[in-house]
């Protein structure tokens, strides 16, 4: 589902990722870990084509990103739900509209949107907050809105960047339960985290980065 072959990514002044290769199979739930600045966010950005690799090949959900035209990027992104590290919630829109936006950009009809958004909000326990604005929500609630927006369109791949970064252990636990539910429905998951607790003893694939280099791929 996701394949990196000898991928290198340079920013102007430094190399963020060096010669990275790995495969994540369809339906898998995998983790990327490593200290802050090791290149986790950059790796995820390469997957949804917010950054371009300088060397190597990436394929996602059957798309060869090397061959991808700029006009096709929107259609690649519609297969990928992203839980952004910085949330990217729209402050002037309420919870419902923030989640609905992922469907509106696809041109879906409003009636169908209502059904899907409320159903998804219910699954992250935010049905009662649909009229609230992001500013009026706690960090954990905002995190769950972002997760709802990433999953509402049933993407084939879901990427999450530090999804438990600033959550208390109980909330982190419930977010992970949600992810397992999504994964159980067949969605391929890739979660970037520096929180060992999330993958310890799960037996799931963990991609370890350090200073932009892959230092190991193995079960957690």
């Amino acid at each position: 589902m996701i394949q990196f072959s000898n991928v290198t990514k340079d920013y102007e002044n430094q190399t963020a990722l060096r010669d990275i290769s790995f495969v994540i199979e369809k339906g898998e739930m995998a983790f990327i870990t490593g200290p802050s600045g090791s290149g986790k966010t950059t790796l995820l950005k390469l997957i949804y084509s917010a950054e371009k690799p300088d060397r190597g090949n990436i394929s996602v959900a059957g798309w060869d990103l090397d061959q991808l035209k700029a006009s096709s990027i929107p259609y690649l992104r519609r297969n990928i739900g992203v839980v952004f590290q910085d949330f990217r919630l729209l402050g002037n829109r309420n919870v419902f509209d923030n989640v609905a936006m992922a469907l509106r950009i696809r041109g879906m009809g409003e009636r169908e949107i209502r059904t899907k958004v409320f159903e998804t909000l219910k699954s992250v326990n935010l049905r009662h907050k649909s009229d609230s604005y992001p500013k009026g929500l706690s960090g954990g609630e905002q995190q769950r809105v972002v997760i709802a927006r990433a999953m509402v369109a049933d993407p084939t791949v879901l990427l999450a960047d530090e999804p438990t970064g600033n959550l208390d252990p109980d909330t982190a636990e419930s977010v992970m339960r949600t992810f397992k539910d999504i994964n159980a429905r067949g969605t391929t998951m890739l979660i970037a985290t520096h929180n060992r607790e999330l993958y310890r003893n799960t037996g799931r694939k963990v991609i370890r980065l350090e200073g932009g280099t892959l230092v190991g791929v193995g079960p957690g």
Partner: protein
Amino acid sequence: MSMSPYSFRLAAQSLHREKWINLLSVLTIASGLLVISVALLVAYNVNAATGKLPEKFALTVYLNDNLGREKIDALIGALKKKQSVAQVRFIPKDEAMKELKTMLKNANYVFEGLDENPLPDSLEIRLKREAVSPEEVKKLTGDIGRMQGVAEIDYGEKFLAALHSVKSGVRTVGLSIITIIVAGIIFVCYSTVKILFYRRTEEIETFKLLGATRAFIRAPFIIEGGVIGMAGGLISLMSVYVLYYVVLTRMSSVVPLLSNILFPLDLFLLLPLSGLLLGVAGAVIAVGRLRY
């Protein structure tokens, strides 16, 4: 360009959220279009006022004395063959005298002691409408002057030249004003849409990350540009109509000439439509030039 119903909602939201910027642009566009419509109104009325003059315009050709019916007929025949001539009428000197006498009914003493008619026979020539220009008339009078039996030609040379310079002056000034203002309006819409775009870059970046196409991102701005332009057009239409009404009802007692001014009905369609088109044009240029 795919215009989903949601594009219209996004445009409506932006029109509401940025109402002050939008209102400012609408008023700027409205004042530009107001100047244009006043210019059009003036041009329209100058045209309407002078439009019927060529039909009234006539050349009078005075003939030599005692030319004889045959030569006169030959002359009339030759004149009628000329392309710019529409109509030739022979006015015998007796008829001319009768006309003069009715005109001077209250001053009959002028004719006392006059036992012979001093007026010459004459021909009145009416020209085809399209032939009434100073150059054409000058050429024609030159030709006629060289014909046998013609004594003198009389026509409103100065009047004709003045009429023409007024008309072409109005046209030139009007066209320059309109061109400048049209460019100005497009620029206002262009700048407004650019500002609106930059104020929403964060939101747009998020839309893109969620998988929005360029068309989805651009459509609301183009709709918004069109709405701003059309609103400007409607406001200018109302203003110019009010202005026309005030001039007609209040000013015409002071300046009687103004009681004849007309309001071209085309403006009811022309102003909103041209506002819409200029707004869309400005928006299309703006979103086309943006990098995203």
